[in-house]
């Protein structure tokens, strides 16, 4: 990296907003995934204009640029695969406007997901998408990945709650798409940019739709002695047309790890639990809770508890949302998958995942958004053991392939990033890639923005190239 680029960045943003020493850069070479890639420079813009100027400098010096929020991503989306500049939005973290009457908030990308809800809950509103990392992940990252969360089953994922965006294009131009109140005439550009994984533009401002809190909520904990019973319960809840606000499943093995860590009150001797939440009008909630309980009992639930107050409910959710942290106590590293399958195929999918894990010698934990069919098998491994790492990747790929065979997809909410891009050919044809590539090139023709993501590098997508590799390969942790 040239010294003059560094000089220009320092002069543009001030030295306190520019990192370039190895000891600082190593903090930005990883995210929540198993991937690693070290940037050459990390910058912290404060305004959209800062972002635009940094992008123009990157163009001038022909270096790639990658946007990053809190670095909680699970697909390597915010890693500088081709080196270059990482642009961290942590200091663009202001809520710019709260329009409670129209249920809209305008926020900068560095605002933490949960902080939006905290700012509006006094008015009975909240921001619906709630990734497990919502206490630390940023809305900019949510937009890039089209993040989901346990409560997106009834309310939809990030894209369903974004009405307008301000963007900085790879040439530094600042543009706005969508409209605050939605329904703007023309193509649904918000629908395209949300979930484009930072490969089309950098998002510098987001207008989100706020949701009104439901009148009534009931949280049920159903305890099963067989995983099959729990998964069959989910399939039947879906088939009966009951749409809970959330329907999460945790297997017994994972439950024990959570209990050791959180003490959420989960049973240690069960094969699986379902955490099911229903919300809406009181009359609807009562009926839905009864229907859910009925399905659970039909499928041999040992016990169905209803959280008796907010404290108990919060504790159950704390257990669920901190599960990945709890698993960190069991093995040095884990690989969290994100495959999606038709919900009718849930029982057979879980059986197969177990078999695949066994084949490669791993215990595979399952804690996931069962109601969406969004699986999160977790392969625990020791990255210091090269063979284990290779096997973990092989097992994971086999699981994802199986999801696709069942009619599913590679990723439900974590994104493709640099983790699953080589698997994209399982789903997409050359013609599909050709069109996606044309759309990519229409906005990011030189691949200067987040190169080496989403598109398979090995399959005719040479234009979506990685310019240079400055870092160690992922396996060498």
């Amino acid at each position: 990296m040239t010294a003059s680029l560094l000089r220009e960045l320092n002069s543009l943003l001030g030295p306190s907003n520019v990192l370039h020493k190895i000891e600082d850069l190593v903090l930005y070479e990883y995210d929540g995934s198993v991937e690693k890639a070290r940037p050459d420079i990390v910058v912290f813009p404060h305004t959209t204009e800062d972002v635009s100027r940094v992008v123009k400098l990157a163009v001038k010096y022909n270096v790639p640029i990658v946007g990053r929020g809190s670095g909680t991503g699970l697909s390597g989306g915010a890693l500088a695969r081709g080196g270059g500049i990482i642009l961290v939005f942590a200091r663009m973290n202001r809520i710019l406007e709260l329009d409670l009457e129209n249920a809209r908030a305008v926020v900068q990308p560095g605002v933490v997901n949960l902080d939006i809800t905290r700012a509006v809950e006094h008015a009975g509103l909240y921001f619906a998408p709630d990734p497990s990392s919502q206490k630390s992940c940023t809305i900019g990252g949510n937009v890039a990945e089209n993040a989901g969360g346990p409560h997106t089953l009834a309310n939809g994922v990030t894209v369903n709650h974004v009405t307008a965006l301000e963007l900085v294009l790879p040439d530094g131009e600042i543009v706005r798409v969508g409209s605050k109140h939605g329904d703007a005439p023309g193509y649904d550009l918000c629908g395209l940019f949300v979930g484009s994984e930072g490969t089309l533009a950098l998002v510098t401002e987001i207008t989100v739709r706020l949701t009104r809190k439901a009148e009534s909520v009931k949280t049920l904990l159903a305890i099963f002695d067989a995983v099959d019973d729990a998964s069959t319960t989910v399939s039947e809840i879906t088939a009966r047309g009951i749409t809970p606000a959330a329907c999460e499943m945790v297997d017994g093995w994972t439950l024990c790890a959570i209990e050791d860590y959180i003490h959420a009150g989960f049973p240690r001797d069960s094969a699986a639990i379902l955490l099911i939440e229903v919300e809406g009008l009181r009359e609807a909630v009562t009926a839905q809770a009864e229907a859910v309980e009925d399905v659970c009992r039909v499928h041999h639930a040992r016990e169905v508890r209803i959280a008796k107050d907010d404290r108990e409910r919060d504790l159950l959710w704390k257990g669920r949302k901190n599960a990945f942290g709890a698993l960190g106590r069991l093995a040095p590293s884990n690989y969290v998958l994100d495959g999606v399958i038709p919900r009718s195929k849930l029982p057979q999918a879980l059986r197969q995942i177990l078999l695949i894990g066994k084949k490669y010698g791993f215990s595979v934990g399952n804690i996931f958004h069962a109601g969406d069919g969004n699986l999160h098998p977790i392969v625990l491994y020791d990255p210091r053991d090269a063979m284990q790492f290779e096997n973990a990747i092989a097992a994971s790929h086999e699981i994802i392939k199986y999801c696709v065979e069942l009619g599913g997809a590679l990723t439900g909410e974590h994104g493709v990033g640099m983790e699953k891009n080589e698997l994209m050919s399982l789903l997409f044809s050359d013609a599909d890639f050709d069109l996606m590539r044309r759309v990519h090139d229409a906005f990011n023709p030189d691949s200067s923005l987040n190169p080496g993501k989403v598109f398979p590098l090995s399959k005719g997508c040479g234009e979506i190239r990685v310019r240079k590799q400055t870092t160690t390969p992922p396996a060498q942790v």
Partner: protein
Amino acid sequence: MTTTANLASRLEGLLGAHRVVVAAESELLDYAVDGIVPAAIVRPNSAAEAAEVVRFALAEKLAVIPTGSRSKLGLGMPSARYDISLDMTGLHEIAHYDAGDLTLSVDAGMPLRQLATVLTEKGQFLPLSVPCYETTTVGGTLASGIDSILRNQYGTTRDFLIGAEFVDGKGALCKSGGRVVKNVTGYDLHKLLVGSLGTLAIITRLNFRTFTLPHAYGGHLASFSGLDGASAYRIAIEHSGLPLANLETLSPVMLALVARVLSKIHPENALPLNPANWCVYASYEGNEAVVPRIARDLQKLSSDATAVSSEILDPDSDAHLRGLFREAFDWLRWASPAVALFRIVLPQSKASDLANLLRFANESSLRNATLLRATGVTYLAFIGEIDDESTLRSLESVSRRIFSLAAASRGHATLLHAPLKLKSSVNVWGPKPADFAMMQRVKDSFDPQHIFAPGRFVGGI
């Protein structure tokens, strides 16, 4: 450009004579879009055949407009060129329906009505309760972007469209999304197809998540002496968090139109609709306990907002009104020979902006009717009694003013329907949006040679 005879033989060579209409003038007229008659109608019966026609059109530099039931061809601007009508009604199978997963994959040419019959057998439905319901196709509904009256509860089409297959402007069969309800694999290109009026791709198949039919339905009608009372009632409903499927506020003129249409379609219906009042119709659904609860709450909220009448509708009347509001676009556009029907989106809370708009409408010499739909969408129809030059000039003048009023309120307006002559002086899409250049990039990626309905879309795309 090919000669007609040459075009005929080339197309027949592609798909066989029985799927190509070239010379039958009367049939070609049925496929006219904004008065422009295509040189040929082609009826593929597979996605591969549709792709072949597109590649042919590309090679011959011919413009293509995909058609379904042709119920809403008047949307948008007249196309600059239109050589081939690609009639997609030959693609009408359900490719995949996993009722247990509530997911569906259906060909673009499938009539919505027919699809509903299949879904109903499984106790499910698609929340596409849209105008021209009896004839419209799934693909046409999606491409038109027309409002479903259920969007307040179920969201817009983009919220439950989970994937699509389509032919791009290079004649390649492409897809995006998938058949699962949650998916972030690859770009969500299918979302771009919603409301694209056939300008990006030829939609061949669409994947949706389906929904369970509710156990019970209800409807409630309240009337107010003025807009203020009706608005206060709407705001109270919004703050109550009551989950309504639909909420329609009608101006007195709109109410009179509704009464007229109702008496025509359902002469037995004796619903008392007093056209001196503003009226608010709410429809809702749920289980047997939810529906009466919502009705009770609406009775109270309307009475608090000083309603002059408040009535829980009997099931027949409610069903009639539901159907009638679903079809509002259709009967409004034909309310007279010269209707300009606007769809306007304003901030929901800004009563003053709406009041400004309505004041202006009432100051104009044209009869006008207003339907405030849920989620901040307003349908405003200017109804010229006769189709003459003077009416046209009046429509032209109000159109310009509506576009500028909407823009001043940080909202936007679109002319959903206008006399063809008006389209030569007024762009139905209003001024070019700020993100127009971005839309052009999308268009160029999908359809590099601009063979799909060129000029029909926003800003001349």
